[in-house]
């Protein structure tokens, strides 16, 4: 019991050290800026950044901007889940198609697709669809690749069980292959959603349209440094919470051995 308690209390030490050093960093920065050793026109004091958070909510309507960003991200997420899984299933079903196209999909994953945003601006105009489609195209490859991996990796014994019950191909897919591949598929969807969020915020910032990305662009163009830093911190916070939630869902879906 005492060992468990000690172990448990010991496990908090690294987290405390991590948080503590972050706190020390902010205090040192505050001292440096207040003493004039670091220009406040380049780095605002952390206390000022902290004070700007309220302003973000009252004056900059950060909640509605957050909603817009999340809606764009989730719309791209739904699209890439539907098309990515369908594409992966299709490629896994037809081996020739998989052998012909899997390398292309992998290559697309390593290509700087985000650079296509001016092209999407021309095609869709300066609106949410440019942002959604950019996020969709950039985030599609991991969903397709992980769907192929998940279905191909279904245990032989499960497939044989389906065969012994004389399941139709459709039943075999919905009752055996898809549930077995779901944890791996969700890894792809999680990666896709992360890419989608990165692209949504990035494109919002670049084309100065939409939610949180535009807020950062707006504030920096107004030279509201404390506000810019606060908005960046807010986006980081939102991203981290988003990733943590996705990880929790993934852990929940993973089978217990």
């Amino acid at each position, binding site marked *: 019991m005492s060992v468990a308690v000690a172990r448990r209390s010991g496990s908090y030490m690294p987290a405390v050290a991590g948080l503590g050093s972050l706190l020390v960093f902010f205090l040192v920065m505050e001292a440096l800026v207040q003493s004039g050793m670091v220009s406040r026109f380049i780095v605002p004091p952390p206390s000022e950044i902290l004070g700007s958070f309220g302003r973000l909510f009252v004056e900059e309507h950060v909640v509605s901007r957050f909603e817009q960003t999340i809606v764009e991200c989730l719309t791209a997420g739904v699209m890439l889940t539907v098309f990515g899984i369908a594409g992966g299933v299709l490629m896994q079903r037809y081996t020739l198609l998989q052998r012909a196209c899997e390398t292309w999909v992998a290559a697309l994953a390593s290509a700087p697709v985000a650079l296509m945003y001016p*092209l999407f601006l*021309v095609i869709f105009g300066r609106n949410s669809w440019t942002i959604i489609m950019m996020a969709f195209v950039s985030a599609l490859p991991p969903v397709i690749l992980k769907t192929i991996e998940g279905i191909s990796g279904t245990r032989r014994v499960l497939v044989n069980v389906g065969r012994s019950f004389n399941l139709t191909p459709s039943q075999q897919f919905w009752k055996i292959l898809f549930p077995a591949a779901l944890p791996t598929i969700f890894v792809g969807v999680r990666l896709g959603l992360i890419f989608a*969020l990165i692209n949504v915020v990035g494109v919002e*910032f*670049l084309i100065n349209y939409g939610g949180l990305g535009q807020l950062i662009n707006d504030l920096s163009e107004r030279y509201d*440094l404390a506000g810019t*830093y606060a908005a960046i911190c807010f986006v980081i916070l939102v991203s981290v919470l988003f990733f943590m939630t996705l990880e929790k869902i993934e852990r929940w879906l993973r089978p217990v051995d």
Partner: protein
Amino acid sequence: MAETGRLRATAPSAPMIGPVTLLRAAIILGVLAIWEFLSHSGWLYRDVVPSLVAIGRALLELLSHGDYYFNLGVTAAEVGFALLIGGGAGVIVGIIIGANRFLARAYEPYLYYLGPTPKIIFFPVMIMYFGVGPESKVALGVLSCFFPVALSTAAGMRGIDRILIRVGESFRANSWQMVTKIYLPAMRHPIINGVRLGLGVALIGVLLAETKLSNKGIGFLIIQAYSIFDMPRMYAMLIVLFVLAIGANALVGRLGGLHTIRRT
């Protein structure tokens, strides 16, 4: 010998062009045909889908101009510096964090969660620190590629075979010798993997920063083509850029011997 003979005997019966190649060619031709049809159909705004001839002409024009190579050189230098600084810092931090469990548990979660955040939002801050020149683009590239390299190196460090470390210790290797003779060679694959990921994100970071605020580089050329609505030129630049990026990625993987991992 007998095995070799059998292989030789079966080789000529294989078809000249396999079904995979045929399907690939069919897909490419199909896409090109649909593209050409769309460009002439008038269904889309004029020049949104330019004809293949116009794109080909723009591609030739682009590749025959010295100006393009100058801008390519600027972007390549920015990405190179970003990879050197960010990758180097990532390897050092990765080794330190990977070697110490306490440090890993204290700081790795920050690296892990900050890694996938959109880095382009730091660009206004980088402009404040480093100005509007290439330095701010390099800084954004450094920030982008630091995280994947650090995380990959830390994971690689933890995966080093204990026997190798004991061999180094039994030879009384000092810290520098341990790093250069044991850690780095043993972590070659994870580091190269990290560098590959780092190269991709550094390239994206630098190019996006160039499209936002710059007067040279490929990102600048792309946004310039957009602002004067020169679509064939924009498509041509994107094609060249995609080929170069995918090629560079494959080259880094090949130089690092990633293609041999499964066989060894």
